[in-house]
C-alpha cells in the first residue's frame, strides 16, 4: 500500500458571516489532523472562524467539456435579471 497521506480540500468561513470558501488543499492522515493542519496553514492571520475539510477524492466535479450544455441555457434568459424590467420613475425605488 502506498504510504502517502490523502489530500484534503479546505473550506474556510471568514469573519463576516460569509459562506465557507475553498482556500486550498493539504495532506493529512485523517480529518482531525486535516483540520489542525488547515488551522496552521490557512488561518495564520485571523482569516477564519470555521473550517471544513473534505477528502479530495470525495468531490465530484463537472467536466470542462460540459461547459456548453451546462451553462448556455441560462445565457438566453435575460428576464431572470431585475434590469430586464422598466419601472417608471414615478414608482420610486424598487
Amino acid at each position: 500500500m502506498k504510504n502517502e497521506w490523502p489530500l484534503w480540500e479546505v473550506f474556510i468561513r471568514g469573519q463576516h458571516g460569509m459562506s465557507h470558501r475553498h482556500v486550498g488543499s493539504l495532506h493529512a492522515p485523517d480529518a482531525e489532523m486535516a483540520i489542525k493542519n488547515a488551522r496552521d496553514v490557512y488561518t495564520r492571520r485571523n482569516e477564519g472562524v470555521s473550517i471544513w475539510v473534505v477528502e479530495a477524492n470525495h468531490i465530484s466535479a463537472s467536466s470542462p467539456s460540459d461547459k456548453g450544455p451546462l451553462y448556455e441555457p441560462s445565457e438566453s434568459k435575460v428576464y431572470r435579471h431585475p434590469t430586464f424590467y422598466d419601472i417608471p420613475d414615478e414608482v420610486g425605488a424598487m
Partner: protein
Amino acid sequence: MYAQMVKSEATQEDPEKLAAFQARIDAGEKIEPKDWMPEGYRKTLIRQIGQHAHSEIVGQLPEGNWITRAPTLERKAILLAKVQDEAGHGLYLYCAAETLGVSRDELTEMLLDGRMKYSSIFNYPTLNWADMGAVGWLVDGAAIMNQVPLQRTSFGPYSRAMIRVCKEESFHQRQGYDAIRKMAEGTPAQKKMAQDALNRMWYPSLMMFGPSDKDSVHSEQSMRWKIKMNTNDELRQKFVDQTVPQAEFLGLTIPDPKLKWNEERGHYDFSEPDWNEFHDVIRGNGPCNTDRLAARNKAWEDGRWVRDAMLAHARKKAARKIAAE
C-alpha cells in the same frame, strides 16, 4: 526569483489544439487543472512550481539557523512567524503542482535525490544576525519582484497560490529591513555588520533572477504561455532600482563600484554577478549545497516513522468505525 533556469519542454501536439490553447491564454483566460493543456505546458509548470516550492522549504534552513539565537524575544517571535510562513508557502505551491498530476511525495523525493533544484540563494550561509535582516530585505525583496507579476500567470492554481503568498510576503521584507535598519543605526560595530551582510548578499541576490536574457534559453516559450511574466534582466533592473535608495537611506553602500544612475535610461547601471559562480552553485558546489540537502534528507528520514504511524493509526480507526456500523 525562486525558479531559475526552468527548462521549458517542447510540445508536439495537434497544431489546432495548440492554437486554441494559445488563444485562451492570449485572451487572459485562466487554465484550470481539468482543461486540456499541452504536455510541455504541464511539464514546464511542474518543474517551475516544484522548484519554487522546494525553495520555500529549503529557504527555511538559513533562517531557522538563527531562531534560537535571535537578540530579543520579539525578534525571535517575528522570525519564527516568518519561517512558519515559508513552510505555508511551500505547501500552497506543492498543492498547486499536485493539480498537474504529480504527488507531493514524488516532488519531495525529486528534491532529495537532486533531480529537482531550489533557488541558488539558499546555498549561501547566514553567518550572523545581520544576515537575517539582509535576507528579509534583499532575498524576500527579490522574491516579491518575481512573485507579484506571477499572480497574473495563466495557470489558475499557481496564480491563486501566488496571490496568497504575496499577501504574506510583504511582512517578510519589511521585518528584514526593520532588522537591518536597527543595526545600521546602531553602534559602529553593528553598522559594520550590516554593511558586511549587504556585501555578501548583494550579488547572490542579483543571481536569484537567473542568467542574463542573452543567455536565457528557456524564456520565450514560457513567456508565450504566461508561465514567466518578465525577462530575468527586466526584473533584476527593477530590483536594483528599488533597492539602491533603500540602501542609501540606511547609510550603507552597495558593493559595486560601477553602480551609477543613468539619466538617459532612467535606471541604475550596475555590474553583473559572477555567472561562473552562479553556474557552479547550481551544479552543487556552493558553500552550503551539501548541508542543505543533507538537512532535508535527514528531516525526511527522521520523520518517516511519524508519517507511517499516523497513517496506520488513521487506517485502524477507520476500520474500527466500519466494523462498528
